[in-house]
């Protein structure tokens, strides 16, 4: 293997990792976010397979090293999964996007939506024996809000004014302004044990974590595995499993082999599309198929001399046969996108938008109408500006690159010249943020994380992840006020309006909403029956059990 082959093989691996990371906040919707009373889901799961057995190890595969088990470092799913079994928040968003109480028993928002009062559970202890009280919640929230700690979760607390504890079992959070995403962004934050964390500090805590969750830290070799062991004194009862283990297998073929041989029970990171089909056919797995909230898209620079016109962007979209991308590139494991939100976000999804079904004639009409006429070289132009732009593709992104190559041909047919150029992931993302590139190709979430449609950082003027230099006063207004609207019906209307505007203005070429497929070996019992987001199946691992005879 020469140096060039070696590099391209390695880049292939990196590109695959990014794929999932960008689609990492897969979510679906429960716009109104119903609040469950504890136990409902446990009952639902238990009804499914006979009597739980005690013992065994659940083996999950990850694709990247597990460097830290601190709630600070859950940006990568591979670190979030074990962390979510060690720690708990006051509430959690479960696998069907319901808000479920964990360390809290209940919460009560004030009339104006500015004050939230939580009643905490009693009789909960941390893995080191310390009792859990409101002091731990105060410590955690204040630690994150202290700028000196440069917490990765600081942005979640943007709208928090004060956190107070009138007594050991009550927490009162006051917001600067009403924000309906508060419960998802803040109340789900994992709680530190105040005394222990203050004593050993965040750095040491990352490799010696202590939480209230069903599993306690066992062993850890970042490049190889993390093993968590059932915690005997868990307040909801000891887990059925003896251990929860995550093995690091960077190579997709290796994960596939481990699933086929039964050495692992599940892979939290995706497999190759053709391997998915093979495992589905085998009949040896419990399968959860969910729709991602991430959108597969071509972001466009809305300030580019050619791309700045709405008619041009619409014409580019009419010229694409997106169904064939779904069928040929993703082997049917995707659906055509309609706007910024995925149909998975059901309560906020707006299907009544123009659908842009493949129609090159319509494209030509639009371009003609906008004054773009064909030059001698077959490429359209207007006032000396060529109908041409350059699209950046991630180096080694063999999976998505065909989309760009085929689109290039289709656009050539309507007189538009698109050149492809490869670049490093972070550089392309940075360049698009800064408006230095014309276009790109990757997946990103434009609302829908944890079932909430808020996406202020991407679609609002000047947003940190506004890859399109897009600016629309009405969208800004709807997005910024959407988080303050307490009436769920009115709120849904606001986000539906946003989708209508995005579908009309096409700031980016929304291509597909991809599916995620999760496979569990049939020996794993007690799994939930309905799953809307596969990652959120893991925090319930304490309910699952292993049936070796299955």
């Amino acid at each position, binding site marked *: 293997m020469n140096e060039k082959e070696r590099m391209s093989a390695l880049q292939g691996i990196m590109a695959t990792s990014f794929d999932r990371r960008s689609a990492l906040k897969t979510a679906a919707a429960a716009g109104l976010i119903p609040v469950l009373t504890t136990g409902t889901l446990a009952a639902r799961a238990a009804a499914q397979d006979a009597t739980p057995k005690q013992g065994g190890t659940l083996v999950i595969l990850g694709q990247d090293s597990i460097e830290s088990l601190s709630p600070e470092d859950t*940006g990568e799913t591979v670190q979030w999964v074990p962390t979510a079994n060690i720690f708990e928040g006051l509430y959690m968003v479960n696998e069907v996007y319901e808000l479920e109480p964990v360390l809290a028993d209940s919460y009560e928002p004030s009339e104006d939506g500015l004050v939230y009062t939580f009643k905490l559970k009693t009789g909960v202890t941390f893995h080191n024996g310390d009792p859990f009280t409101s002091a731990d919640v105060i410590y955690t929230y204040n630690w994150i809000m202290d700028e000196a700690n440069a917490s990765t979760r600081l942005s979640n607390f943007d709208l928090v004014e004060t956190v107070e504890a009138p007594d050991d079992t009550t927490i009162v959070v006051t917001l600067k302004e009403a924000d309906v995403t508060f419960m998802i962004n803040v109340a789900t934050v994992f709680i530190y044990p105040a005394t222990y964390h203050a004593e050993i500090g965040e750095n040491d805590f990352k490799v010696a974590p202590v939480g209230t969750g069903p599993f306690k830290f066992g062993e850890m070799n970042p490049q190889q595995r993390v093993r968590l062991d059932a915690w005997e004194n868990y307040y909801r009862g000891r887990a059925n499993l003896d251990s929860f283990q995550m093995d690091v297998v960077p190579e997709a073929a290796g994960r596939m082999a481990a699933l086929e041989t039964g050495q692992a029970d599940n892979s939290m990171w995706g497999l190759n599309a053709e391997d998915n089909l093979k495992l589905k056919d085998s009949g040896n797995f419990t399968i959860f198929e969910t729709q991602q909230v991430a959108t597969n898209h071509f972001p466009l620079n809305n300030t580019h001399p050619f791309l700045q016109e709405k008619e041009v962007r619409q014409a580019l979209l009419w010229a694409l046969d997106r169904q064939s991308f779904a069928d040929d590139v993703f082997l049917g494991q995707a659906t055509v996108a309609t706007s910024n939100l995925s149909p998975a976000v059901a309560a906020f999804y707006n299907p009544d938008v123009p659908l842009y079904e493949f129609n090159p004639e319509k494209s030509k009409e639009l371009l003609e109408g906008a004054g773009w006429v064909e030059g001698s070289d077959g490429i359209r132009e207007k006032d000396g500006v060529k109908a041409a732009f350059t699209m950046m593709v991630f180096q080694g992104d063999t999976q998505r690159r065909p989309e760009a190559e085929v689109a290039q041909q289709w656009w050539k047919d309507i007189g538009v010249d698109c050149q492809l150029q490869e670049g490093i992931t972070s550089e392309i993302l940075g360049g698009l943020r800064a408006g230095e590139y014309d276009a790109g190709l990757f997946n990103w979430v434009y609302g829908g994380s944890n079932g909430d449609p808020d996406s202020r950082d991407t679609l609002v003027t000047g947003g*940190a992840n506004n890859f399109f230099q897009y600016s629309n006063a009405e969208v800004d207004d709807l997005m910024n006020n959407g988080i303050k609207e307490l009436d769920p019906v009115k709120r849904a209307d606001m986000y539906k309006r946003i989708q209508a505007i995005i579908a009309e203005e096409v700031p980016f070429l929304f291509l597909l909403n991809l599916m995620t497929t999760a496979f569990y070996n049939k020996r794993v019992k007690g799994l939930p029956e309905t799953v809307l987001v596969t990652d959120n199946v893991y925090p319930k691992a304490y309910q699952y059990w292993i049936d070796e005879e299955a």
Partner: protein
Amino acid sequence: MLSYLIKRLLQGGLVLFLVTFFTFTVMFFMPGDPARTMVGQARVTEEQLELIREKWHLNDGFFERYWSWISNLLTGDLGTSMMRPGQPISDMIGNAAGFTIRLTSMSMLISLMVAIPIGVLAATRRNSPLDYFSTLGSTLGVAIPNYWIGIMAIVLFSVKLGWLPPYGADSWKAYILPVLVLSIEEMAAIMRLIRGTTIEILGQDYVKTAQAKGLHRNVVLTRHVVRNSMLPVITLIGYRMAFILSGTIVIETVFSWPGIGQLFFDAISNKDLQVVQAIVLLLTCIVVIMNILTDMMYAVIDPRVRVR
């Protein structure tokens, strides 16, 4: 001899400096923002990112960061990691090194054990089926990327036959596939060399003389031929060390082997400058020392080298 050694060591020191400085420069200017990687896709403002960058000294200038690295190094401190915050890098490398040393030394040993006898036999029996077989095998071994061989081996031996685990480093069974796959390229390279030199030596006058004296064929082979054909092999081993180590990056990724190669790959992906520097320093040291040792061995085996 001593002055020769000192000269070589000084040269080695210069190589170390140049290689680490060059890597540092490349890593420093490599695009990518570790602060963004740390927050994932969370909604975050530029000010909040700036806080994270300040905390991890990501905003310090080129010379400032290089100086802090080199001054720590001179006091024997490799520094602490950013991707595993606060962890001493020496611990991380120590942890991973055992896995890589076992992997590389075993595959080097196996390569030699297989390649030397086959290479010599192929040379003495030219144009025999064994010769054709070894030539074909060594050509394929060099030509086929070990990345591909690795994946095929997993599919065959783990999935189809179920004999060996598809990943991990827990049992002796887990060593078989990575060690063998890593050996293939070495085996092929060594075999070709041995065959070539042996053929050359067989044509030498002193071999003909020995044969003419009526010495037994095996005695001629072991005393005269094999001993002399070992010379280039020793050079090759020193030289192949660099290839073996870069091969481990790929093999360790394919087989999820928790060694230096995977650590190196992770450190580059996370743009963890300190860890990358430490590993490059270590690998360069190994290659430099192997080269010096090779030259020394040469002098021991072949007295003519000493004269220079």
